[in-house]
């Protein structure tokens, strides 16, 4: 591989190992040391790699930091590992190279106790006070006193003399429980700091205490608006790890239901975005459309919001003719509603002035922050996991990817509207080609024990790139499960984008990202 020759030229001491992509989800694996990890990060950012994930795994003799670097235009994923001493864990920071590492490292610090030298703001991200042990370690490691100082240390009002406003955890606008502390000068924002953790439920620790089958309901509750996509990601990852083949009919039905879920998530985003801007009526119209989808999915799966429909090797139960008829009727109905949304919203001069040329991202953001989904597609980069790394039936269906040109709020809005239309096309084509056959692979063991190893798999959720990293040690309980969620990296771009704007613009930008805070907090 040409990238490994380049790595060997720049770092003669490293030995990149080639790994089977089908089994592991990454192409190369490199073992780094504390002295060269920063140079490796610099090398990768020059080669246009973005940092997809940075997590930590506790193998009791040592802690291992795992970095995943990927590219936007080619399917190439490289895993870099760094072993750390478990007694006094510390590592150099790469947050001055990759901005997204700023939050990744804060999270690793509060769950594992790893101190990053040179990190500008080593304050807890999710947990706020009364921590006695580091939660994700395998043994009980108490929090040392000098670390306890860092608890409850985020008090911006006491440190400076400025006008601070809390876009508080309770909003009338439906983002979820996000608190943004904003330092203002009149109507202009000088600094915006998101404060997270109000909805932290510790799904990653729950994964280490439940078998693979028992974790089904948790996946849907992380992002309840794109629940089927999260279900699909989890199920596909474990199937790849165990080498389970899914029958064709199940793949097509998975595709159809995930696209329906994507449309319903975008419809809800549309209503909420306009409610942020002050137009309260389109909210009701989109919920009317969304109700049709929820009724169709309820008739198939039995739930309306937090589905547990997919199983390892297939589906829970089959679809019937009512489903096919219902979906066809729904497609025709929604296609006729788009012109109404155009007249009410897209062409409206007040809306255009609120949204055009606001929140413009330049081309360096995707590399530094790893943003994904409609956010990156509005910049003009056609990066969609459904085409980049196809899963389910996406490689057999021909569909278009919506891109924008200006990377402002208007383009993010238009990209999502276009995505809804493209999803309708996908559903139509998949329905036409729906094969008959079984919906579940046979011979799935009741207690699933995947082989030893790790895997990183990504899918395209309505918000962007969802990455799941599972480390298995041949028991029926995962050793470590890490969820890399798209809203995390999208939200991280907000402080830089909001500097110097009016508060009304900042709220419009926040609305256009389509954030779901429960998936950030997990």
């Amino acid at each position, binding site marked *: 591989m040409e990238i490994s020759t380049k790595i060997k030229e720049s770092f003669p001491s490293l030995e990149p190992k080639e790994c089977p992509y089908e089994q592991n989800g990454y192409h190369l694996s490199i073992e780094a040391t504390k002295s060269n990890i920063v140079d490796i990060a610099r090398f990768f950012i020059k080669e246009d790699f973005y940092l997809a994930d940075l997590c930590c795994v506790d193998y009791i003799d040592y802690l291992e930091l795992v970095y995943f670097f990927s590219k936007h235009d080619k399917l190439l994923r490289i895993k870099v590992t760094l072993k750390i001493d478990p007694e006094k864990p510390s590592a150099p920071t790469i947050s001055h190279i990759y901005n997204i590492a700023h939050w990744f490292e804060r999270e690793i610090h509060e769950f594992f106790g790893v101190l990053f030298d040179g990190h500008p703001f080593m304050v807890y991200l999710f947990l706020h006070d009364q921590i006695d042990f580091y939660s994700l370690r395998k043994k009980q490691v108490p929090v040392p006193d000098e670390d306890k100082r860092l608890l409850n240390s985020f008090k911006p009002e006491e440190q400076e003399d400025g006008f601070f406003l809390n876009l508080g955890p309770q909003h009338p606008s439906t983002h979820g429980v996000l608190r943004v502390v904003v330092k203002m000068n009149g109507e202009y924002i000088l600094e915006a700091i998101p404060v997270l953790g109000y909805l932290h439920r510790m799904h990653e620790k729950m994964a280490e205490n*439940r*078998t693979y*089958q*028992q*974790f*089904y*309901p*948790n996946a849907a*509750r992380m992002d309840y608006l794109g629940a089927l996509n999260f279900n699909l990601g989890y199920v596909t990852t474990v199937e790849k790890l165990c080498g389970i083949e899914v029958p064709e009919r199940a793949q097509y039905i998975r595709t159809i239901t995930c696209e329906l879920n994507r449309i319903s998530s975008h419809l809800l985003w549309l209503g909420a975005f306009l409610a942020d801007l002050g137009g309260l*009526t389109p909210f009701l*119209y989109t919920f*009317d459309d969304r109700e049709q989808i929820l*009724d169709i999915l*309820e*008739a*198939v*799966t*039995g*739930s309306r919001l*937090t589905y*547990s429909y997919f*199983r390892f090797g297939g589906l*829970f*139960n089959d679809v019937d003719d009512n489903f096919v008829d219902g979906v066809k009727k729904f497609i025709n109905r929604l296609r006729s509603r788009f012109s*109404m949304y155009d*007249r*009410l*919203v897209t*062409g*409206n*001069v*007040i809306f255009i002035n609120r949204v055009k040329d606001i929140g413009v991202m330049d081309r360096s953001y995707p590399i530094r922050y790893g943003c994904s989904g409609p956010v990156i597609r509005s910049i003009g980069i056609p990066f969609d996991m459904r085409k980049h790394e196809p899963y389910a039936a996406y490689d057999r269906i021909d569909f278009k990817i919506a891109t924008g040109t200006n990377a402002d709020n208007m383009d993010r809005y238009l990209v999502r509207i276009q995505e809804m239309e493209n999803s309708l096309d996908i559903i139509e084509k998949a329905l036409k080609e729906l094969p008959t056959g079984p919906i579940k692979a046979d011979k799935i063991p*009741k207690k699933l024990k995947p082989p030893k190893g790790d895997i990183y798999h990504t899918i395209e959720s309505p918000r962007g790139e969802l990455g799941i990293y599972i480390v298995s040690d041949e028991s029926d309980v995962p050793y470590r499960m890490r969820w890399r969620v798209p809203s995390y990296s999208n939200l991280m771009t907000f402080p830089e984008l909001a500097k110097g704007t009016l508060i009304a613009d900042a709220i419009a930008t926040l609305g256009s990202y389509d954030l779901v805070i429960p998936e950030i907090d997990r």
Partner: protein
Amino acid sequence: MVKEVITGAISLLKGMGVTIKAFFSPVVTVQYPRETINITPRFRGHTKLVADDENPDKTRCIVCGMCERNCPSNSIQVIGEKKEGEKKKTLTKYILNFTTCSQCGICVESCPTDALAFSGDYNPASFNKETFYYDLVAEFEKRKK
């Protein structure tokens, strides 16, 4: 400049046209509880015990405890006793704590005799928590009558 003002004004009038059309259209809401809609038969709700085909007075449950072990939320308690002269255990109590149940369907799937099914009960309401500690055996007996 004048053109922008005119196109802007026309776009506003188009938007007003949409809302006035909706004003004169029928409502899409259903006045629950005076009107109800048909709930799909696959709706989940809490689980129920299924009668045995050969002996409709008894359930299919063999008190193996698979559902209790596989439940992610520890909401199930299966209590059975071995009666005199019988080879297998019989089920006396099946407590489902519906306040922690997430309706995932793992118990339904993992039962080796298919003794559990979803009940489709979509509007349970009560003033105290104890109503939701369902005893599925008692409900099965009530349904027999």
